[in-house]
């Protein structure tokens, strides 16, 4: 139970960090004014090219709303590995299945509630005046789009607290004059844990795999040879092992 509680705590921290991370990523990429002039020319692809992505999105929603249905589909293939074919596989405990059922229906109820309140909003506001104006700027209504929050500024309060775990590189030409000329401020943040525990390991893996780079030589004949060698190995190695076992058995019985 204590393990469960600590798992739960980790889940919460992940949840909190995910909230911070996804709001940052989504907001900076999709919302507000364009932060760079060059991306204003970027346009969405045609609808036909978007259909596969909508399909993937729809599948994800279906998994969210009807998780049990998908778990049931997975049970048979998983049973192949857990050797429970022939018996009724019950990989998921009943209480969890029940909770997932309720969870799925609660999710659907939520969607219907959102639609209902949206329709209510439209009905209540149908004859009300709607004005479009500038964003509230506290007496600076025509401020530059550069004043918008960036990814770094959004995460700044968090990165200040997590400073011991971060490498923050800063390039700055500080303002010293009353009427400053062009100034520059740039920060690059990198995760120390990633640097010491992941990057170093990846570097080591790259060194080891580098020894076998000669295999990737771009010659089609060689690749076919690798395939033949692999298939031959799959066939011959069990035969060799079997012969060795027979020999050992023979020697044991001498």
């Amino acid at each position, binding site marked *: *139970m204590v393990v469960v509680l600590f798992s739960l705590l980790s889940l919460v921290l992940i*949840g909190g960090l995910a909230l911070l991370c996804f709001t940052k990523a989504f907001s900076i990429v999709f919302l507000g004014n364009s932060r760079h002039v060059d991306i204003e020319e970027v346009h969405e692809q045609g609808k036909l090219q978007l259909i596969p992505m909508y399909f993937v999105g729809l599948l994800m929603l279906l998994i969210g709303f009807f998780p049990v249905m998908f778990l049931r589909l997975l049970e048979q293939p998983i049973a192949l590995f857990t050797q429970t074919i022939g018996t009724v596989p019950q990989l998921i405990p009943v209480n969890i299945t029940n909770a997932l059922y309720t969870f799925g229906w609660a999710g659907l109820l939520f969607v219907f509630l959102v639609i209902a309140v949206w329709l209510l909003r439209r009905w209540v506001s149908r004859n009300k005046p709607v004005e479009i104006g500038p*964003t509230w700027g506290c007496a600076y209504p025509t401020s530059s789009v550069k004043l918008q929050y960036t990814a770094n500024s959004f995460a700044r309060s968090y990165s200040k607290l997590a400073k011991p775990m971060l490498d923050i590189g800063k390039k700055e030409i500080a303002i010293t004059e009353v009427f400053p000329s062009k100034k520059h401020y740039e920060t690059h943040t990198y995760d120390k844990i990633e640097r010491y525990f992941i990057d170093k390991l990846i570097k080591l893996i790259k060194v080891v795999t580098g020894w076998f780079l000669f295999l990737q030589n771009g010659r089609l004949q060689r690749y076919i040879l690798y395939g033949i060698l692999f298939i031959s190995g799959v066939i011959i190695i069990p035969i060799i092992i079997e012969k060795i076992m027979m020999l050992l058995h023979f020697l044991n019985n001498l």
Partner: protein
Amino acid sequence: MQPMKDVIRLMKKGSVYSRTTSIVFRLAPVVYFCTVAMAALLIPFGSSRGVISFNGDFIFFAYLLGLGKFFSIIAAMDTGSSFEGMGASREALYSLFAEPAFFIILGSLALLTGNTSFYDIFSALHLGSYITYALAVLAALVLAMIAMIENSRLPIDDPKTHLELTMVHEVMILDNSGFDLGLIIYSGYLKFAIYGAIIANLFMGGMLLPWALVVFVGTQFSFAVVIGLIESFMARFRMNHNAQFIFALSSVSFLIFLGVLLVLGKFI
């Protein structure tokens, strides 16, 4: 009833939208309100289950409120305002710190009772030992403070301040008006009532309806009085002290966890 009258008045008004905003900005208040309304359906009442109740529903509860917060943050970022971006950043940080406190409390009570749904946890809370009432009082204190953070009230945030730089939640909704603003404000009131109901459940778990009603009304009234007193006599914290304070709440909830381990004899 003046606050409710204000909400109704707002809902009858027209709206002003920033030309920077997209559909996200218009949808966000609706989603925010619906998450809070759905969360309310999960709260039990004495010997009656919540409208929706299942194992692990308190996780669903926390993530529903998280979803509402997600939408309110992205709506603020949608305006392109640096003020609203600042509020959104602060809100995301405070949520990051407030969530562990809530989960440690509910997780500890789940450990104590051996149940994982709101109704089962509260029903079985006081069946073993009277020391659980002491834990409930401590949990009530932390939950009351979480409610203050969630609703951006003093001492974390001042909802009546007029200076954008010192705001948290209020600065995020500067561009909302009319029906949308009414929904957001009403969701805040609803959230307060929800946390009040959770606190009441810490003491009325399993009680019959008449007694449960008395405890519920008494707790909500006391909760309102305590908030009124705090808001009348306490100044808001300095902005850089807020994170420390919210993190301290997690430490207090950790005390509850240790108390639970003591009760269960699993301390070592």
